[in-house]
Every structure is written in structure tokens, then in C-alpha cells.
């Protein structure tokens, strides 16, 4: 908010990838690839991209198959385990306590920050209350936290989630920068 010019500049660039992604989804929803669905999909996508401009997604990494499989596999396991845990909390007699926990991420990318936040929010029991782009900080509301030890365990789990995202998509430079941050924190 402090620098409106920078924000508008980031918004101004036309986003071709988003156009095709949106049109692709439109065709998927219609369930068949015909000239009609493709053309109408492109028209709707063009409207959305022009009327609701968003900052471009900066991505210069590659998809690492092993890292990607690990990310998806671990996410699905987390989803099942956490769903059962939250279901347990719902059915138990006493109300669970919760906490708002600060997580300082290590990567320096909007995309990885967004993906980490999305994945953490999708897994039951935690959701992003506040995100700060300038310091790469997520504030998460987490259910079932009783004390500082629980909070620390969650913080570690959140950083592990970010690590899996970076190692699934990061470029060599990003991976190196990430490892350096990690080493620096350990010292």
C-alpha cells in the first residue's frame, strides 16, 4: 500500500499464461474441446485478465519430478491425517485451544510463499490470518495448540512444507539461496 506506483507497474504487464490457464479451465468445465468452447473460453479469459489485472507470477524454476511427487504425496497424507485429527477435535467433549503463530519463511518468491500458504491452509487445522510480503512472514491460526512446544512443532512443519515446495519447483539459484538461508539459521 505504501508504494502504489510499484503495484500498478506490477499489474500492468499483460499475462498470457493466465489467459491460457483460464481458457483451459473453461474448456474442462464444458467437458469437450470444440471451436465454440475454445473461442468462448478465450473471450471470457481475456475479459477477466483485462478487467481484473493481477501482478505476474514470477517463475523461472523447473519442475523436479521427485520433489513434486514428494510434495503431492506428503500433502495427501497430511490432508488425511489432519482431517481425522480435526474430526476428532470436533467430536471430543472439551473445546480445543488454538494459537496464532508467526512463521518466517526462507524463500524469496511470491509464488512459493503463496503455494506454501495455500497448502498449509488446505491441510485442516491451520489457516493464514495475515501474510507480509516484505518480510516473507505468514501468521497462521492453528487449532489444537496447547503450549509453546506445540507451536514450535507447527513452525517446523510449516518450514518443511515450504522446503518441499522449493525443492519441487525451484531453479538451481533458488535452491542454492534456500540452502544458504537454512545453513545460516542453523549456525
Amino acid at each position, binding site marked *: *500500500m*505504501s508504494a502504489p506506483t510499484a503495484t500498478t507497474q506490477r499489474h500492468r504487464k499483460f499475462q498470457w499464461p493466465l489467459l491460457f490457464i483460464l481458457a483451459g*479451465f473453461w474448456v*474442462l*468445465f464444458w*467437458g*469437450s474441446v470444440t471451436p465454440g468452447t475454445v473461442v468462448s473460453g478465450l473471450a471470457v479469459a481475456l475479459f477477466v485478465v483485462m478487467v481484473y489485472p493481477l501482478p505476474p507470477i514470477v517463475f523461472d524454476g523447473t519442475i523436479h519430478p521427485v520433489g513434486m511427487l514428494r510434495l503431492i504425496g506428503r500433502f495427501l497424507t497430511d*490432508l*488425511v491425517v*489432519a*482431517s481425522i485429527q*480435526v*474430526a476428532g*477435535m*470436533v*467430536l471430543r467433549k472439551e*473445546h*480445543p*485451544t*488454538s*494459537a*496464532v*503463530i*508467526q512463521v518466517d519463511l526462507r524463500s524469496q518468491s511470491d509464488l512459493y510463499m503463496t503455494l506454501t*500458504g*495455500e497448502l498449509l*491452509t*488446505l*491441510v*485442516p*487445522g*491451520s*489457516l*493464514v*490470518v*495475515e*501474510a*507480509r*510480503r*516484505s*518480510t516473507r512472514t505468514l*501468521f497462521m*491460526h492453528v*487449532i489444537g*495448540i*496447547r*503450549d*509453546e512446544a506445540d*507451536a514450535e512443532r507447527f513452525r517446523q512443519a510449516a518450514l518443511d512444507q515450504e522446503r518441499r515446495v522449493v525443492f519441487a519447483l525451484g531453479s538451481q539459484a533458488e535452491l542454492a539461496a534456500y540452502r544458504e538461508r537454512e545453513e545460516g539459521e542453523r549456525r
Partner: protein
Amino acid sequence: MTWPVIADIITSVCVLTGALLSLIAAVGLLRFPDLLTRMHAGTKPQVLGLLLILVGVGVQFGGPDHIGMLFAVAMFQLLTAPISAHMVGRAAYLYRHVHEEYLVIDELMPVMGDGAE
């Protein structure tokens, strides 16, 4: 056992488990004390619940165009559910719709004023 029978069994298990998770989400919505904890109950077990129901439907219908559509539904749900959870959760937090006695740690309140981007 032939494929239709196996498909029926997979579908029954998936759809019933999915429905159960959605039911538990509804119970949580009624039982939990404040908006933020209700968000957890309301938005989450239902994510897995919906995915299971979609798998159940996919097994019955098969075919690339059905699978494509189910995949699109799943992706949209996965992309949009966190956004709405975040927006509602953020508003609830900022307006202090929080039961303090259930919030054991709060690391955001002390730094609320500074660096808002």
C-alpha cells in the same frame, strides 16, 4: 469379481467417507466456540470429503471428458477454499471475534501496527 463390482465398492466407500467428513464439518460448525475455529471445521474436513466424492464419481463414469471436469472441480476447490478461509479468518481476527480463553499463544497482536503489506 468383475470391474463394475469393484468400481461400485470403491465408489460406495469414497462417497460414504466423503459424506461422513462433510457431516463432521457441519457438526464442528455448530460445536466450536468462535469463528476462527469454526473456519477449520467448516472448510477443511470437507476438502478431503469433496475429493473423495469426486474420486467416487470418477470411478463410476470414467472417460477423459468426465475426468477432466472432475479434475477442474477439484483444482478450483483446492485453489479457492484457502482464499475464502483466509479472508474470513483475517476479518474475524482483525475485529477480535476471538474467544481469548481458547487462544493460548498470539504472536500477531504485538506486531499488528508495523509493516502492513
